[in-house]
């Protein structure tokens, strides 16, 4: 069976600028797929092509089993879309917008009322449903946007930077909602984000896009482990320092560390920490403090592009 999202050599140019440059994508059913990249990397352009809003300049894409160019209407029936900035008519109420969305997706009037109520409850907007959207907070707008994209129970949900501009509490609440959707309904989620933490928290698999090209793809843990071994740091007393160093050097190459602290690149990865602890205990070394730093997705991005996602040099 074809994956819900398949793209081959998908490209889009604006004049001489290649916004998306021959990307291949394959997202499995029920997966949360993160599309990570800085502003202007091509994330939104890719989403607009996959959601039939923009014609590709080259390549092809199938969403929910249908070609986005040849069968856009069928694709639109099967997808839910929450685009950047939660573009919602501020003069209308949440309820009115949901009802409009039901009509746009051909839901019968009778079931629409029930559906609207369910969705408002799901996103915690039952009380605010009859208020104009203009009075909503950023988080409420995002949640309504999510509800709007769910009225027709889509197979595939596209979320374009769903938490940009939200405060941390609203962001976490939205993550929880996306997780629930994925787990309860098995909805395939294609999520674009510029936030490392968001991709790390939500996505089972990530593609990193930069300059219109996919530069890395894989699960967050595999991408991070590919960058290098995690750094294990332990604090011991000054007396134990030489023997602790000898023990730890058996498990990896020593890395620079502060006074009374030893750091190594743990060759066996995170699971190897137990062996190190046991070996230190066997040697009678008292450990005062332990830290394990995994490479971050920012390290992955830096490794792939030579730049930090936040803009600093790698």
């Amino acid at each position, binding site marked *: 069976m074809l994956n819900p999202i398949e793209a081959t050599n998908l490209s889009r140019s604006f004049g001489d600028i290649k916004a998306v440059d021959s990307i291949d994508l394959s997202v499995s059913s029920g997966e949360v797929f993160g599309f990570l990249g800085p502003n202007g990397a091509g994330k939104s352009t890719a989403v607009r092509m996959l*959601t039939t809003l923009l014609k590709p300049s080259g390549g092809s894409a199938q969403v929910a089993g249908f070609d986005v160019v040849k069968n*856009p209407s069928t694709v639109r*029936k099967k997808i839910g879309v929450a685009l950047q900035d939660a573009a*919602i*008519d501020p003069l*209308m109420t949440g309820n*009115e917008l949901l009802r*409009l969305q039901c*009509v746009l997706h*051909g839901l019968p009037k009778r079931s629409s009322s029930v559906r609207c109520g369910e969705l408002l409850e799901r996103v915690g907007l039952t009380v605010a449903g009859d208020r104009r959207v203009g009075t909503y907070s950023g988080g409420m707008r995002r949640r309504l946007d999510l509800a709007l994209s769910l009225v027709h129970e889509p197979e595939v949900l596209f979320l374009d930077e769903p938490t940009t501009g939200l405060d941390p509490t609203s962001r976490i609440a939205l993550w929880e909602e996306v997780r629930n959707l994925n787990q309860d309904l098995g909805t395939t989620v294609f999520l674009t984000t510029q936030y490392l933490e968001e991709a790390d928290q939500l996505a089972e698999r990530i593609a990193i896009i930069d300059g219109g090209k996919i530069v890395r793809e894989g699960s967050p843990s595999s991408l991070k482990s590919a960058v290098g071994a995690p750094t294990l740091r332990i604090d011991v007393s000054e007396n134990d320092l030489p023997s602790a160093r000898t023990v730890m050097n058996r498990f990896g190459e020593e890395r620079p560390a502060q006074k009374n602290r030893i750091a190594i690149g743990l060759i066996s990865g995170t699971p190897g920490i137990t062996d190190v602890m046991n070996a230190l205990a066997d040697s009678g070394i008292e450990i005062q403090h332990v830290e394990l730093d995994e490479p971050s997705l920012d390290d992955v991005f830096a490794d792939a592009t030579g730049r930090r996602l936040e803009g600093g040099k790698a």
Partner: protein
Amino acid sequence: MSSGNAPHVPSLAVVFAGIHRGLIRLQRIPSLMLPAVLMPVFFVVAFSGSFASIVELEGYETDKAVNWMTAWAVMQGSAFSGMGAGGLAGTDLENGFFDRLRVAPTRPMALIGGLVGYCVCRALIPITAVLIVAFAFLGADMPGGALGIAMVYLSGIGMAVVMSFLVLGIVFTFKTLKSLAIAQIIMFSSMFLSVGQAPIQAIEGWLHHVAAINPITNVIRMCRQGFLGEVTWSITQPGLIALFGMMVGTGIWARIRYKKVDA
């Protein structure tokens, strides 16, 4: 992008939903209607008073200026109302809401139809306002009777549809509210280069030739005929043909330019 071959959501439901949405907005911001109502009412009051004696000239076919000017004001109000479609579409394009509409499995003409239908509803307000002012306060006559009134509404609604399509095509092309300025220029020039203010006999030079071929001339004549005398087929038919032609032309224009939103 093409609409594909899958069944779409029934268009009539989408059209009515579009009209409903527009009317909700209108109810919440009634000031949206101010230009479309005040301008034509101002026109009919000011022009009927200032040019009261103009009807003594040849070609006016009436003894009251208000009988001549009311149709002109109705056309203005309808055209202004038609611009509301562009205003709403432009706002939606600028804030991104239009993408939410476009990503639904609906026919583009259903979305366009909702905007145009909303403007038709809007147009009923200035048409009625102008008629009330003309009859109640300015002493306008209607020898054409109920049929004459029907012609006023038909012409006004038709003009609102034509202007809606035209403005939507412009807004879809430029994807900004600012492009309404272009629509206003086109609207004003096409209205003024007709028999709106003066009969064709009183217009000279190139203006005469332009007014003679301007299809809006025939629509205004259709609208005005009930104020001047009986409603006749000889005036109604060219008006209907002109309206139909303009609707088809501007409708195709709007649909073609809708594709530009994808670009």
